[in-house]
């Protein structure tokens, strides 16, 4: 067993874990963060995508011990009082049906928008290639990501937030 300390969605946890324990199983089975689901066992589907120190990772391909000392954000912690613009945009654009891929899709899209705040349709499609959805055909996911990009830009460019913006 190895002792790890991880901050998840703003709360600090310290646990003794098997070195082989996957981060996604740590999140789901130990911490109870079941908002992050598992869709495959070969890192192809992206359903388990979370942020580790601000970058998206597929939590099925990270060991819990590798997350020691890091900060994890899951779908359960992405809202900040209000829903994240991606959560609202996914709802408004009907970008989900069964919703199983949605947590990973939103977390991956958030990272995509961090790198590219105003992606074209093709850039969204290429950027989300590692996240599979079987219900939507992706069309409304693409729309939702671009809608969220626009609303985020609107927030960024408003006078109230410009003073505090750092990037």
């Amino acid at each position, binding site marked *: 067993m190895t002792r790890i300390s991880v901050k998840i969605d703003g709360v600090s946890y310290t646990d003794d874990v098997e070195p082989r324990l996957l981060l996604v199983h740590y999140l789901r089975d130990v911490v109870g963060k079941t*908002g992050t689901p598992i869709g495959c066992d070969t890192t192809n589907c992206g359903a388990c995508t979370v942020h580790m120190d601000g970058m998206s990772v597929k939590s099925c391909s990270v060991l819990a011990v590798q997350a020691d000392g890091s900060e994890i954000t899951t779908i359960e912690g992405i809202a900040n009082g209000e829903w994240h613009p991606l959560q609202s945009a996914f709802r408004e654009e009907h970008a989900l*049906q069964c919703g*199983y891929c949605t*947590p990973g899709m939103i977390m991956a899209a958030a990272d995509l928008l961090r790198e590219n705040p105003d992606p074209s349709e093709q850039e969204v499609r290429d950027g989300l290639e*590692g996240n599979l959805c*079987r*219900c*939507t*055909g992706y069309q*409304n996911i693409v729309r939702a990501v671009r809608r969220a990009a626009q609303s985020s830009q609107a927030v960024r460019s408003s006078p109230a937030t410009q003073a505090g913006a750092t990037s």
Partner: protein
Amino acid sequence: MSTDTQVQAAAEIGRARVRKEDTRLVTGQTTWTDNIQLPGMLHMAFARSPHAHARITRVDLSAARSMPGVVAAFSGADFAGEQGSLPCAWPVTEDTVVPDHPPMATDEVRYVGEAVACVVARNRYEAADAAAAIDVDYEPLPPVLDMRAALADDSPKVHDAGNKCFEWSLVNGDADAAFRDAPVVIERNYRQQRLIPTAMEPRAVVCAPSGDEFTIWSATQIPHIVRTMLALVTGISEQELRVIAPDVGGGFGSKLQVTAEEVLTLLAARKLHKPVKWTESRSEGNMAVHHGRDQWQRIRIAAERDGKLRGVSVDLLADMGAYLMIVTPGVPLLGAFMYGGIYKMDAYSFRCTGVFTTKMPTDAYRGAGRPEATFAIERVMDELAAELGMDPMELRQRNWIKHEEFPYTTSAGLTYDSGNYEAATARALEMFGYEELRKEQERRRANADQVQLGIGISTYTEMCGLAPSRILGSLRYAAGGWEHASVRMLATGKVEVVTGVSAHGQGHETAWSQIVADALGVPFEDIRILHGDTLVSPKGMDTYGSRSLTVGGVAVRRACDKVVEKAKVIASAMLEAPPEEIEFSGGTFRARGGSGASTTIQEIAFSAFHAHDLPDGVEPSLDADATFDPENFSYPHGTHLCATEVDTETGRVTIRSYVAVDDAGVVVNPLILEGQVHGGIAQGIGQALFEDAVYDDEGNLLTTTMADYLVPSAADLPSLATDYTQTPATSNPLGVKGIGEAGTIASTPAVVNSIVDALRPMGIRDITMPCTPQRVWRAIQAARGGNTGSAADNGSAADNGGDAR
């Protein structure tokens, strides 16, 4: 604004409501089955057969039992007295061979992935470790992998009764006469490759025992059917079983099943008196979730020189796999009536042979039988057009049923209730720019461009809304097709609706709320839809076959009508006017003329709750049940057009534009309709271009992961242009038709037709699916007379297409 328009504007049906379901789904507050953790819960893992066909000679569980955390280990012999046989509810003929199908193999395994033993341990890691320590000895038997060879007399047998499962046929009209002396007869052989449905949520089961009672959570489409079947299979009394389908992450038919794992999780929980959970991995699921399609189709079509159709004749081989599951033999029958598509003809003949092989059983996958039928007729219509030198759209227009001819009884014997193929096609052609694309195609052909342009058409219809219990019975299906609903007005004026269908992404909580809001005149937000739990919703037939709205939604509407009827009696007493003088509109009951006094349905609900002054003979509470069993199927239709660019040097296919105009009757929620169409088309494109479940020569599944079995990603798919027309169904009071499978049914032939159209000047008349760059390139090389190294798989001959990629 006129009064009529105001009423229309206020109507919920037709509004693009965002979904109620999404609040929990976008915030991670979901209850997937694997999320469930119960005190003392144990985890189950399986050892599965590595052989396609073998005799089990020894199962040694001793090493597994001594592993840390292992509570128990079981072989098939341990379940022998209680596991029964997995059910097939659709033996399609009197003499269909229904082999014994133990949930855990006892003597013989017949596909790679069949469960042979299991362990139950404290956590999922310990269970996986111990499952790997199970030692099984096998005596290999010859695999049976090609269903054509399987019918030969000297083929090894999957079961003692032989490899032929059933033969089923249908003849209408004089098929011999239609083909005899026909000026044009086209015959083609098409391969429907085996597909893996791939719902994003892998299957999972949790079973909690409590004395003699069991609660089973399962990632299923069919909690009601699972409950009944678990009772029949295990002998546990049905009233002791409660089945819950919590949030379910997609199904597409794959969760329309009663699985070995559901039975075995239940039996293990019963043996151990503890809650037991089983969750599959994707690699396990690709092997052991039922597969779809897998047919060889021979289709012949006879026509006059002017293109008028005389008849169609179909001979089908359908791979059952190793056993019959819930509706395995019924899948080809769901297509049996659809090989005539939307066209008029004099004669129709269909024959299907079901064949056993040593592969994972097949069963329903989105469209189930109808995508196969639609592919064959829409592909062969293009072939006929080419033979006649006619534009393929013109050929279709000459033969399709005209809108004024509905209801129309087809050559296959179905009565299509309504449709307007002209309107949907006109809209699609306009959106697509058909004439301009044909001109560009001519230019590229004339210039011998490296990248050629192809145009594919699919003017489809399908039969869905799986119901008419009498018709299903006449086809030897064991259950009915009715659907149930309860509508309850609560004391506070809010509404609870219980529906017997079981959503797993379809948005019933939203769409049903829209139906109820209109029927009762209550706010959309005041309505809660309950489903997916046999304790909460005791009666139902669940969700598959695009039936939820056309059967379940109509049951909801009928229950609402009964509530209004009862409320009217109470209103009559409250307003002191005879019932026939009470009008109901927008949630308000008003006495016609006289005082014009009024009361709301919420006030009546409260009155029915306190019951202080109800009229004589009126029972307290305002609620009603309804069960609906329609008399006909539902026949959505539409026109899909696909333009692809095919690189003749690399074989790469790029979809340049895709237009779909569908007609699903009255649209309850256009947002949900569009989403269903998008997703359906994506799956149909997946079959056309990417997906293929491949077994090797020994019967090992090669496509066990998402790296091998290619579910399309966002980068693989085009942007789709969609619209709809609305020709109301006449077979139900809402005028609605099913839309869940239509996109998948329509799109596959549209894509393949466009690829073949691009390459037809080279003499190519087919590419076997999936149309990978390699297959397309080989077909081009063969057409050019080059050596492709594999003539058998060049995709250009009529009888081509082995399973090798």
